[in-house]
């Protein structure tokens, strides 16, 4: 396997990455991006907060035994993770932080639902593998000294490691979003007329839902 880490030069359909395995189930977004890093007005500076409590101890000292702190893992672009990765809070900061840290893909048996959507909306590739295949991949990565090279191939829809080849599923929509970097809002704008027509019909059927927020606030403010 050749090693040219990062997205393949010509397009994003092949990622050759250095992978680190973090064998923790239910790694929630509170842990991926703790609350003290949610105070910003923009998306910047979140690489610093990524997995903070795993990377640093209570005195702010680097935990040298944590995988992402080991020098040979400093350039990893792929995480191999446990079940229900990114569960919990909806904070998209978790995804922004992963990307800013250099992570381009996460491979896990399952993801928190909102996190999964957030990944897709930001071009962070989330690859779901059946538990048994994931376990094998995880074991292989943990046996290595140093990061394991993995290839995520969006043409063949497979993840390859030195010892394995696993197919995975990604909806056509998500695959296209990922490869083309679709601006979702722009593509929804193409339905602008549909939305306008829909809303008028909707409110004629359910008039109590029209301007529900502004009307309610006005009503209670005048009480």
């Amino acid at each position, binding site marked *: 396997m050749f090693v040219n880490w990062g997205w393949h030069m010509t397009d994003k359909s092949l990622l050759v990455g250095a992978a680190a395995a973090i064998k923790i189930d239910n790694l929630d977004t509170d842990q991926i991006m703790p609350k003290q890093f949610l*105070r910003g007005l923009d998306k910047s500076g979140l690489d610093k907060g990524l997995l903070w409590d795993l990377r640093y101890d209570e005195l702010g000292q680097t935990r040298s035994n944590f995988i992402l702190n080991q020098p040979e893992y400093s350039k990893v672009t792929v995480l191999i993770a446990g079940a229900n990765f990114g569960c919990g809070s909806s904070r998209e900061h978790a995804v922004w932080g992963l990307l800013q840290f250099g992570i381009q893909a996460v491979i896990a048996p399952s993801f928190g639902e909102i996190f999964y959507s957030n990944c897709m909306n*930001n071009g962070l590739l989330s690859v779901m593998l059946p538990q048994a295949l994931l376990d094998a991949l995880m074991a292989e990565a943990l046996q290595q000294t140093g990061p394991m090279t993995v290839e995520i191939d969006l043409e063949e829809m497979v993840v390859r490691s030195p010892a394995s080849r696993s197919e995975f599923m990604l909806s056509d929509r998500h695959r296209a979003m990922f490869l083309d970097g679709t601006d979702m809002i722009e593509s929804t704008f193409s339905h602008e007329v549909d939305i306008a027509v829909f809303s008028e019909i909707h409110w004629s059927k359910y008039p109590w839902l029209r301007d529900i927020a502004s*009307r*309610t606030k006005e009503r209670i403010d005048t009480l």
Partner: protein
Amino acid sequence: MTAPRTLYRKLLDSHTVTRLDDQNILLFCDLHLMNEYTSPQAFSGLLDRKRDVAMPGQNVATVSHIIPTDPVRHRIILDPASLQQAQRLKSNCKQQGIPLFDTNDELQGIEHIIAPEHGMIRPGMVAICGDSHTTTYGALGALGFGIGTSEVEHVLATQTLVYRTASDMRIRVDGQLPLWSTAKDLVLMIIGRIGAQGARGYVLEFCGSAINALSVEARFTLCNMAVEAGARGALIAPDAKAVDYVLQRATDIDGPQRESALEYWSTLYSDSDALFDCEHVFDASAVIPQVTWGTSPDQVIPITAAVPEAIGAQRESTEKALSYTKLSPGMVLEGVAVQHVFIGSCTNARIEDLRQVANIARGRKVSPGVRAMVVPGSGAVRQQAEDEGIARILLDAGFEWRKPGCSMCLAMNNDVLADGQRCASSTNRNFEGRQGRGAITHLMSPAMAAAAAIKGCITDVRQLGVAHD
């Protein structure tokens, strides 16, 4: 004849602008709620591309996560970054004509508490928010779910979402909840049984005699916590109780509109032969007050049970959780000392929750060495609790009676626990570090948390000798 549909499918059908592909629809969103920390980047995104908010009147915002809860008349946010978030929310809302419950608005509160309490949540609607506990609104037969900031931007720009449809799960609960076993205990037990991912990929519908018997506020608790099982939504078909709750608050629905609303709401149930992809059945009469022992809401046991052994597939996660919570397999939680008690959050900070707490606190004292905080869910709840004499009872017993906000549910303001402190908490997440770095959270009902405050340790509220109201 139309094919039988679940309530969830009915809600989707009435909100589908267009079908995008076999998995995704363009979903119209009736109400979008925002807070100060998951919205600024969305507004900036709009600004960058010179886009406007499509339908400002369908959006509302509140300052709730970063706000200090000290009981002062005029609240001042001292943390500069948090202050900026509050100010930015205000200017964004002003610019775009979006109503806001601002820092010192008397009705300010946690988003999932203020929206229903003012009649903004109505059966049959779709309500979304950049916050995972938006599932709360299912208690009134509204489809609610959390979204990320990119989606917040999408809703602001279009009032719609690209929505991947979920599968249907039904959870039937029959039987009667025993005294002191609450909706919180029921939902913790369910999460414990089906697991933190047990409802992942599903919108679930609660039904059965035990659900019918729950008050609307208890149903909020139930649907709120459904997300801790991974659910993408949680629904309860609206009944007379739910409709009364809404009509009492949504006073704008009157005259002929009321008739058509009632008629429409009466169609909001799953058809008898509708198919669910998955079903679970539970017995409410078997629910014992629950307490979490670990760092995930599904790591939970009845107060009478022992902490599980670290064995089988759960061995590693159990060991990891126990080392964080400083507990060991086989021990009971009764008697484990707590330094802190927190009663609050969108799960359990409504008036009925506070009445239960007052019932336990009346004539008793918070144990020396315990700091016990009560943070009402909204300005309206706080006012009502003061009018009912609840605040007085709590203060006399030595509880702190604070201003509304999320507070120690996620500890993003200055209400943070110190390393190693153990907290009996009426909140929804016992994740590592959630209430402060190294702090240990035990989730339980407000009554159980109040009992812990009195005894100074985790305890069985049923043994306290309090008459149940």
